[in-house]
């Protein structure tokens, strides 16, 4: 069946068909974009500012951007970084981020970048839930 329908908690019936993962993909690539597609402008803006701000501050703190995985911790860091979508890809292209933590704030910066990616995944899943009607 190509068409699926669901009934959100508010009683409002939402029907969606075709490719359902647009908000999920958009939200992953650009923080808040999934919410913008749902016309949730304020939520999307707050998410963009929070996740984007966290990523930018992490880079400004000379945090490390993981490019490969030599051990399990690097693998987890890379998985977290990939959550930032275009922020991560553009940063890698521009060669931003330090190779290793040289100062204490660089260690914080590395965590900021990883957590920004993880928070972006949560936000993208939230946009998907809004699209499917699981959340209002």
């Amino acid at each position, binding site marked *: 069946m190509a068409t699926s329908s669901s009934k959100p908690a508010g009683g409002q019936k939402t029907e969606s068909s075709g490719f359902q993962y647009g908000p999920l993909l958009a939200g992953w690539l650009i923080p808040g974009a999934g919410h913008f597609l749902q016309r949730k402008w304020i939520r999307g803006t707050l998410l963009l500012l929070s996740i984007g701000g966290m990523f930018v501050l992490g880079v400004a703190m000379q945090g490390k951007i993981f490019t490969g995985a030599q051990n399990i911790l690097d693998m987890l860091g890379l998985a977290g970084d990939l959550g930032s979508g275009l922020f991560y890809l553009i940063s890698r292209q521009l060669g931003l981020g330090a190779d290793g933590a040289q100062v204490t704030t660089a260690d914080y910066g590395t965590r900021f970048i990883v*957590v920004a990616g993880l928070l972006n995944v949560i936000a993208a899943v*939230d946009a998907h839930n809004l699209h499917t009607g699981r959340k209002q």
Partner: protein
Amino acid sequence: MIFRPSHFTAVLLFALFASVVFAITQRNTPKQMMRYGAVSFAAFTGSAIVLSWLMFLLAR
């Protein structure tokens, strides 16, 4: 651009950004979001302060 915050400033920034995302994604109405965000921010900063004091006392 290089940004070098103090430990506590880093904690406050982390708590602020994480709380905003948690509030938006974990609650449905703006009122619930505000409340959850405030509680989450307080929990982040409060637990960081308590753990810092515990580590300071344990290290003595």
